[in-house]
């Protein structure tokens, strides 16, 4: 009896409460949009936050309320098409993005000035005397970005420089938040030409601490004003509308801080020591070619001028017969 009574009492209380809740659930039920559940099914469940909403469920709710359907970068175009299908709206073209580490200065090109001993974290390292690197803008290479990357897309060169493997990147933008130096940027995956330097030091200072740092010479912006901007001593690509890939900018960049994916893949561009020698040669070539072109143009222009002058000489006496002059004479 002493055993059965407590069991009975507890089950009794439970049953009463349960019944009460069941009744309440009937009266207080909230009608949820069935589309939310359908959307939850097709979203990638990465809960990465790339869309700017808390998790996939947050985005699903906002989608029903009518936000931009092209925000799920891990899902890609397939997901966008499915979302459009469920919501009954027009599918938009999703511009796939990838993360890009905007620093090319490994230890060999942008040397350290001190040895950092401490927790293996960029965030901790940059707190100590502005970081172990001579360049106070560059990649520290302790891997805070790799830590947060769930797809192992962040890798390091031999010289301790982080870079993102575009084929593995799902564009969740976690690394963008993790980098204490704000080096990582989400860029459209179809773009080929990128500036890989974030230093905002004056050119002279940058040159002193890094061999591949942007010195803000503005040669790139002079080639294509719509695609490049030089602000705060730092060149960057304008990825918005109206801008395009300008491979020649990569060629004219004095320190070689602009990467052209058409020419090199990222790893060899970052690590190949012969790369910069080759760039110098190609820059000289370009210079010679353009000089020759300019000379040819000048010559052609001079020839055309001469021809025109000759023609003018011949038709000189006929000039007063022109209607304009006649009118002026009256």
């Amino acid at each position: 009896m002493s055993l059965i009574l407590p069991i009975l009492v507890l089950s009794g209380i439970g049953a009463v409460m349960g019944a009460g809740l069941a009744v309440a659930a009937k009266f207080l039920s909230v009608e949820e949009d069935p589309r939310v559940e359908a959307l939850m099914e097709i979203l990638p469940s990465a809960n990465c936050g790339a869309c700017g909403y808390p998790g996939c469920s947050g985005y699903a709710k906002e989608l029903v309320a009518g936000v931009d359907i092209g925000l799920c970068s891990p899902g890609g175009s397939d997901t966008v098409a499915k979302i459009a299908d469920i919501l009954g709206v027009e599918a938009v073209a999703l511009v796939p993005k990838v993360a890009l580490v905007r620093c090319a200065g490994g230890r060999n090109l942008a040397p350290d000035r001190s040895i950092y001993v401490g927790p293996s974290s960029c965030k901790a390292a940059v707190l100590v005397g502005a970081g172990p690197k001579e360049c106070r803008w560059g990649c520290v290479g302790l891997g805070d970005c790799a830590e947060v990357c769930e797809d192992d897309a962040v890798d390091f060169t031999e010289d301790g420089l982080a870079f993102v493997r575009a084929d593995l990147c799902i564009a969740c933008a976690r690394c963008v938040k993790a980098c204490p130096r704000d080096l990582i940027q989400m860029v459209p995956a179809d773009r080929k030409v990128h500036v890989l330097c974030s230093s905002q030091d004056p050119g002279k200072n940058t040159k002193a601490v890094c061999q591949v740092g942007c010195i803000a010479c503005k040669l790139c912006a002079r080639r294509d004003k719509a695609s490049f901007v030089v602000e705060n001593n730092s060149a960057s690509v304008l990825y918005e509308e109206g801008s395009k890939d300008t491979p020649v900018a990569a060629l004219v960049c004095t320190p070689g801080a602009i990467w052209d994916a058409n020419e090199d893949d990222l790893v060899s561009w970052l690590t190949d020591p012969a790369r910069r020698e080759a760039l110098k040669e190609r820059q000289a070539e370009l210079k010679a070619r353009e000089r020759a072109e300019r000379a040819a143009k000048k010559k052609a222009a001079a020839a055309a001028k001469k021809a025109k002058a000759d023609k003018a000489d011949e038709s000189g006496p006929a000039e007063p017969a022109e209607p304009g002059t006649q009118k002026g004479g009256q």
Partner: protein
Amino acid sequence: MELLILAINAILVGNLLLAKFLGICPFLGVSKKISTALGMAMAVTFVMVLASTVTWIIQVGVLNPLGIGYLQTIAFILVIASLVQLTEMAIQKFSPSLYEALGIFLPLITTNCAILGVAVMNIDEGRGFVTMLVYSFAASLGFGLALLLFAGLRERLETAAIPEAFRGAASALVVAGILSLAFMGFSGLV
């Protein structure tokens, strides 16, 4: 008169949050905005009064006569969990925005020790039905008062120029401590 003293005691002198240190989780969790804190205070008030009433009835009417008072904790938790569920449904129905704002802290009222604490205290102190009702209501008012005061302070802290290392949780905890010290000034009141 006795009831009034009891109420003042529950609100100021023996404040749940600042003197008894019960229910610290929502105190730090939902005190970023006054509006959310107000919603939380109201939800806690509702649950606390209802839970205290039901648990008192169960204890006095069922458990004690049957001589199974040792089931107190488990039975109370059962009641509180159900009532929180009910509150959650009601809030979701009548105020979806508050439901969103309270987030995880709403179901966490289930494990809010202030609720269980008040229910158990009512039994331990041997309070009658009316005294129990007054105490529960006053205690939840005290909870709401402390929560709102704290939320107001934190809203101002957001815009204050404080050293970076002290921003956020650090300064919130310091302020909570100072607020608790201030409430100790009431200790000779009743």
